[in-house]
């Protein structure tokens, strides 16, 4: 009888997918050593679980599901730290009445959207601005796009309340938008 394990040649998968997986992880965690560690953990876990691989999905999809799990685990440990919700973060943008401070009022970004999303410079700035966010704020944003799950699912996953979640997102977006505005629109 053929052992299930022989369906998966991990060494082959390492050669095929390592580069892409490290890039993927690097994009999510912004640290190349950590990205490598996570990919290594993924392959080690894969070798343990190889017997469970049923071939319902491609080996690549299977590896990425393990990798994503590792990345989320890493973030989950981080998010346990108390979330910084200092009330001051809005005073940069709003008056005490909750109205926009005059020169902070968002103006319309004029670039063609399609063009913008493909622009290497824009994407670089977006990434820099994302990494510049305070830990927990950037985390909330990254998790959203990492998990590509709905809000209430993310809250459940992280054990935070929905109110807490969108308040973090609100602060993070506010900062992210300004960072892009300053570095992209005003810099160009």
């Amino acid at each position, binding site marked *: 009888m053929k052992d299930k394990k022989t369906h998966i040649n*991990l*060494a082959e998968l*390492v*050669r095929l997918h*390592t*580069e*892409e997986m*490290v*890039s*993927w992880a*690097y*994009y*999510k965690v912004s640290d*190349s050593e950590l990205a*490598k560690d996570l*990919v*290594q953990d993924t*392959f*080690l876990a894969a*070798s343990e679980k190889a017997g469970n691989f049923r071939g319902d999905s491609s080996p690549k999809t299977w590896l990425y599901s393990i990798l994503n799990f590792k990345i989320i685990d890493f973030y989950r440990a981080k998010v346990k730290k108390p979330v910084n919700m200092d009330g001051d973060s*809005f005073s940069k*943008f*709003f008056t005490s*009445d*909750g*109205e*926009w401070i005059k020169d902070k*009022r*968002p*103006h*319309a*970004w004029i670039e063609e*959207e399609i063009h*913008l*999303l493909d622009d290497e410079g*824009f*994407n670089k700035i*977006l*990434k820099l601005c*994302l990494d510049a966010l305070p830990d927990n704020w950037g985390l909330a*944003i990254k998790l*959203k*796009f*990492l998990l*590509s799950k*709905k*809000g*209430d699912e*993310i809250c459940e996953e992280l054990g935070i309340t*929905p109110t807490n*979640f*969108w*308040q973090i*997102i*609100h602060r993070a*977006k506010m900062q*992210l*938008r300004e960072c*892009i*505005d300053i570095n992209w629109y005003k810099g160009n």
Partner: protein
Amino acid sequence: MKKLMHWLFLSCLKATELIEKKIYFKLSLRERMQLEVHKMMCDACSNYEKDSLLIDKALQKQSAVPPVIKGIDLKAFEQSLIKKLDDVDKV
């Protein structure tokens, strides 16, 4: 007067909060109406919403197809990984 307006049609702080909330959660009927009216009266918040959605789209796209990172030497890493997997297999 301002207080009343804010109570009826939200402050910009509250409006931008609802704009973000709306992306992830369903707003109540009252919240939806307040936000719509507020945006009709407020260019800044309308622009904020457009920018915010654009940022989401860009993040989505970046996240789906992350650029390959250059400058990390992975050959040695791959070798050590294959060796480790070999060792695990032998145990």
